């Protein structure tokens, strides 16, 4: 997802670069007349520009610190199924909330208010302990 974000940022910068410098004609013609072959150059270029923006300007927006890294879809142990999207969302939230100084009781309260069952919350809390 991060690569896609970088590519989209770079693509937008590239596009506006062509637009502002009145070179949209060149961009369009170079893509259309080559049947899209020049995209082989533009796509990596967009990624590199996005990477530069990510590293230099947006690092603190896009990059999350260790505590807020999205949980990897991993097994709680080898014999169980991978986490569902709901469980990943809960695990991510629990890690972020703990990093912000919230206790497990407080976190459970917020999650219950948002419609999650005791079982959902217990499983997610268990996962974060397994992972940490």
């Amino acid at each position, binding site marked *: 997802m991060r690569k896609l974000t970088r590519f989209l940022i770079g693509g937008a910068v590239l596009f506006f670069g062509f637009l502002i410098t009145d070179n949209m004609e060149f961009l369009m013609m170079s893509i259309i007349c080559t049947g899209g072959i020049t995209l082989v150059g533009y796509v990596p270029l967009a990624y590199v520009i996005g990477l530069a923006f990510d590293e230099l300007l947006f690092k603190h927006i896009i990059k999350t610190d260790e505590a807020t890294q999205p949980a990897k879809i991993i097994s709680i142990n080898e014999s169980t199924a991978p986490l569902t999207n*709901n469980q990943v*969302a809960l695990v991510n*939230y629990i890690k972020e909330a703990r990093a912000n100084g919230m206790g497990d009781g407080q976190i459970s309260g*917020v999650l219950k*208010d*948002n419609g999650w069952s005791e079982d959902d919350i217990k499983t997610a809390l268990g996962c974060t302990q397994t992972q940490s």
Partner: protein
Amino acid sequence: MNTLFYCNSAACHFDKTPAASIIFFEFFIFVGVLLSLYFLSKIEKRILLKFLTVAVGIFIFESFTHPLWVNAHLGSWAYMYRDVSWVLTIGWTALVLVPVSVIDKFYGRLEEWKRFIMYLFSITFLGVLGETAVVNLGIRSYAPETIELISGRYISLLNIPWDALYYTPVFMALVVGFYKYWELVINKDLVAPVKKVKWLKTLLITALGVLLFEIMIEPMVINAGLPSWSYIYRDVSFLMTGGWILIIWLAVILVNKVFIQFNLVEKFLGYIAVATIITMPIESWLIVSGIRQYGPSATGNFSGYHIPLTNVPVEIAFAIPFYLALIIAFVSYWVFQFNRKKQIS
């Protein structure tokens, strides 16, 4: 001007030569922006990033609504795209960010919707003053389609159309909604996942945002050939507006439900992607069937390039995600606010 990228609208052929009074006005904007940034840095963190966010929101709005007006005489160096000027963009940005930050600072305990009304009142007041300045200095004039809509109804004291009292708060509501969504990301606010999606409230806020905005940009397009009973205001048809509402609502609900594990940035990209994928072929069909007709000020800007396999002009293809970015950020921000009281115990 490139011959293949020809533009024959007023947005391309206008006088860029600035008068002394306009140069002074631009200098006033620069000083105002710098002072605003200095002042805001005392009450807000990461103010440059927040300033940039509001500026992006305003630029998005200006870039796809620019056929509605012409901004002339700012100097050739002052333009980014067509007649969209970065000088006016940063001016509007300061004008939005100062009241929002001040209200958040001093009325932070008020409920969000009350603060939102305060933002709109204060920004509209400042916005009308700004509009008065740019119109009376000769910078801002209106496209023929817009003038037809205005039809001589001006606030005599200010010499600006009464319609400014409508489009300024609508424009600002979208920009503030856009900023407030991204402010959650910038401030790294904790957002708890919500198990049950509030589909009705999401539908209502989407309907409000889309309808207000469609009425505002009505002069840009002509929606023809739809049943006469479906038109609710000039050529705004509830069939078409209802369709956009459903698409945006569906995209927000779908991403919030299926991609619940995404963070706010990923969700935003997801909303735009889903909504654009649905919208593009529909827009193509509407253009081909003659239901969707763009006004002369919009078509005058078209380069003639179309998205392959569709009949969608490349400008419209890029305007769609721009339009969606503003509306969806506005909707998503309010969807977040509906759950806000349950976010922090």
